[in-house]
């Protein structure tokens, strides 16, 4: 599973993607819990989940309870500021 990070989240973590493998279906919330165990930078990046948006295969998700599969492309990022 590819996980992308953007903007401030990318800066805090210090890289723009991770590739992980999951052997069963998990929720986005589970993924975040896993990532936070990696190191302090992830913990800091995912501290304030209210201000983090997530997409699965380019679609916004409404809830961190949404399930993901191993071949999904996930992204975490702050609210957008384009235009």
């Amino acid at each position, binding site marked *: 599973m590819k996980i*992308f990070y*953007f*903007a*401030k989240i*990318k*800066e805090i973590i210090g890289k723009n993607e991770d590739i992980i493998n999951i052997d069963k279906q998990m929720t986005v919330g589970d993924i975040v819990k896993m990532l936070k165990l990696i190191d302090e930078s992830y913990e800091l990046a995912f501290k304030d989940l209210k201000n983090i948006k997530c*997409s699965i295969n*380019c*679609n*916004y998700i409404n809830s961190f309870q949404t399930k993901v599969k191993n071949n999904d492309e996930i*992204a975490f*990022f*702050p*609210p*957008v*500021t*384009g*235009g």
Partner: protein
Amino acid sequence: MKIIFQTKKLNIEEVLKSFSSQNSSSGAVISFLGKVRPSRNKKKIKSMDIEIYEKMALYQTKLAIKNLLKKFNIHDYFIMHRYGNLKPGENIIFLIVASEHRKEGFQFIQEILFYFKKKITFWKKENYIQSSKWLDSQN
């Protein structure tokens, strides 16, 4: 019917010229150009970094357009958004729309802008003399 996200400078005159002549039978052609401002809260802006999640930005823009075309009778549109490192005064976004009447053109272009503020995956960071700041999302 074109969407372009690019790092090189936006050549807006060329686009306006060709778009307008390609849509010579449209009664109204409306454009919006957004630029990097020179300062924020009296702090001089040295440059702006714009980041993009390109695959999703394209997907979300097409989705937005699809929805808007159900609501508005539009003849043609051209959407350009730049990313990378920009200087004050440089063009960030250029939207142009051709329609039979002005009302639907104004609505369409303002709704597109709304999507760029809310859904389409670009992020701006302003670089000042001594610091940098990712912009907050607007309401």
